């Protein structure tokens, strides 16, 4: 389920359903209607994971998405990021596997290297999320399974802290 797209039509809406330990990274251009929506499953491509598709990895996926946005006219310094997901899905002795936190750390590191500021986020926790991205990334909402309302994430206010 991992891949990314770029778009500039405000009328288009994307849903990311069942975002568990994966991370979603939404990159939007500040100056024009242009957005990249990515859903990544594995943290770092150079870790020797037997997966040929670079778009499944957080680091290579984000880099390719940012490059595609630049090719469509976004200046690298004018991109800002929203990061969501990275839950710890399984619980048990020893806390269970920790791929979710690794994916979040990879996203933070990659965006840092690219000089893209993370202006909003909703990461960690133990539950999956459903995202709706609308209006070229100007309106992003996050809901947990079974939750009816979709609270809209405020790009200006929300930090990287997870909600309680």
């Amino acid at each position: 389920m991992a891949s990314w797209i770029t778009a500039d039509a405000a009328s288009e809406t994307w849903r990311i359903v069942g975002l568990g330990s994966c991370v979603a990274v939404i990159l939007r251009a500040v100056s024009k209607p242009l957005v990249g929506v990515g859903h990544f499953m594995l943290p770092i491509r150079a870790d020797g994971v037997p997966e040929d598709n670079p778009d499944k990895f957080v680091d290579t996926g984000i880099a390719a998405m940012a490059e595609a946005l630049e090719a469509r006219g976004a200046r690298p310094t004018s991109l800002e990021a929203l990061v969501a997901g990275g839950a710890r899905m399984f619980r048990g002795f020893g806390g269970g596997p920790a791929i979710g936190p690794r994916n979040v750390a990879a996203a933070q590191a990659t965006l840092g290297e690219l000089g893209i500021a993370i202006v909003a986020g909703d990461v960690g926790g133990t539950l999956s999320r459903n995202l709706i991205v609308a209006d070229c990334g100007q309106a992003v909402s996050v809901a947990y399974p079974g939750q009816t309302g979709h609270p809209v994430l405020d790009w200006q206010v929300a930090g990287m802290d997870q909600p309680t």
Partner: protein
Amino acid sequence: MTEPRRLTELQLDALREMGNMGAGHAASSLSALIGHPVRMDVPSANLSDLGEIGTLLGGREAMVWAIYLMVSGDLEGHMALLVREAEARRLVGVLLPNRPAGQDMDELAESTLAEIGNILTSAYVGALTQLTGFDLRPSAPLLAHDQAGAVLDSLAAEIQLAGQTIVTLEGRLEVPAVPGCGVLLVFLPPASFLPKMFAALGLDALR
């Protein structure tokens, strides 16, 4: 020894037979546990991602209970018991008949499900040990209650991070006496161990 990119019909047959043995033992254990006969579907085997299983569970958004454990020893693999929300409630209802119907899944219901997962996966792994002579040790089970898509993506990522391409062997168990009560057992051996497994089964020609 290279990992197979695809499997021949003969290899798939051998895998399905393995799945049959494992799921058969698990079905007997479940039957003994709940006091009802348990029916088993013929298991299917694939060299693929887990996307297809999502369809069996009702789509990416469907809520499921997942009991996940790792198998170590002569073969490093993964196993999961996947139960749809409504089926989990019925299964717990059969085992805990004094609970009021429609009661939410509480801690007791959760640990009951985890224990069912423990018993079924142990039976499955025990059957494989008998069949192959491998030393196979299941880990303590981990539990998740979430959307099927999120659970399956996380499982796939864990397995890939362990450096493995997986074979998916799935089998469904149903309790005919309780309509809409069943579980999906998934065994995920790494593809790199297939030649070794086929050799242990006396199927050297399949290597």
